[in-house]
């Protein structure tokens, strides 16, 4: 399965379960496993924050 953000190959362990977070090795987007049905996996986005400077 590929990363919805950057299309990198996502490495989802076989024993991953719903609610678990998988992270993209390339772009760092975090996804929550929303549904899982055998090798059919559905992801939803999780949030992340940046640095905020110079104000």
């Amino acid at each position: 399965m590929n990363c919805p953000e950057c299309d990198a190959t996502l490495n989802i362990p076989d024993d991953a379960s719903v609610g678990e977070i998988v992270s993209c090795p390339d772009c760092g987007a975090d996804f929550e496993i929303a549904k899982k049905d055998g090798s059919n996996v559905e992801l939803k986005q999780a949030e992340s924050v940046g640095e905020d400077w110079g104000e």
Partner: protein
Amino acid sequence: MKVGVVGASGYVGGETLRLLVNHPDVEISMVTSRQHVGEYLHRVQPSLKGFTDLTFSELDYDKLTDKCDVVFTAVPHGTATEIVKALYDRGIKIIDLSADYRLHDQAAYDKWYGWEHPHPDYLSKSVFGVPELHREEIKKAQLVSCPGCMAVTSMLALAPLIRNDLIDTDHIVVDSKIGSSGAGSGSGTAHAMRAGVIRPYKPAKHRHTGEIEQELSEIAGHKINVSMSPHAVDVVRGILCTNHTFMKKDIEEKELWKLYRQTYGEEKFVRLIRDKKGLYKFPDPKFLVGSNFCDIGFDLDEDNHRLIALSASDNLMKGAAGSAIQNMNVMCGFDEMNGLRYTPLTPV
């Protein structure tokens, strides 16, 4: 005159105090912190050792109003929305160093800061604290909002170009470089991981864009967009803004000199730096650290019709506490240079 500082344990609060202890017209009567109540100032602000015996107090609005004629607020944005309002309602003069009352337009605030301003009706009560642009309003203001450090540095270089309609307003690139004190004491990266960086930390959509656009749009009379990208570099203090612009029609260097001299010839805290010789040819914060200057210069790239307007400042001085004192001087009728007659420290 009696002054207070809210958020006195931070970098900007500390720098404001550093200037206030030597200011001829004021006396510091109260400083606040949440974490250090009762502690001596110098434990948190080491440079003040020997200059004051003050201790930190809790933030008590009534005491502040009672003890102070003017209050500086130097707390994170978001936090300042309430504090400034509470003080404003008590009728006291406020110089806010956060971003909370810089933007006049609620929608702009909500866009750039990612939440709804709780007191949008107070946005219009605040004057944008750049005396070089709004001196007369500041004189009469109860609430002055000091500008963002990269914002003021950039806009002072761009203002004359916009006012005279010299540049293509679709391609204004503001490439900023800033030191580590710009991050505040609350969120600094550890030295080992921060030293030696040349780090683009928010290449698009940085919050200061909103202020620069507000001020330049007001000057232009129409909406101006700015393409800003800030970078963290390995200094503690200092900002350089490289403002890349494209000329509508080619201009000569001599005209640029004239333009900038007209605009800033009388200003005490703007220097024009564009020298063919010597150590200081273009603006560089190295040569103004510790002072309240914004240094401005320029160069021409005729091949590309590009006009590079360069500007530098000390982010804790003209970019924060220096502007705050300058605004206080204007608001209170003191000599605008009082407490700010600092020659840059060079070399440092």
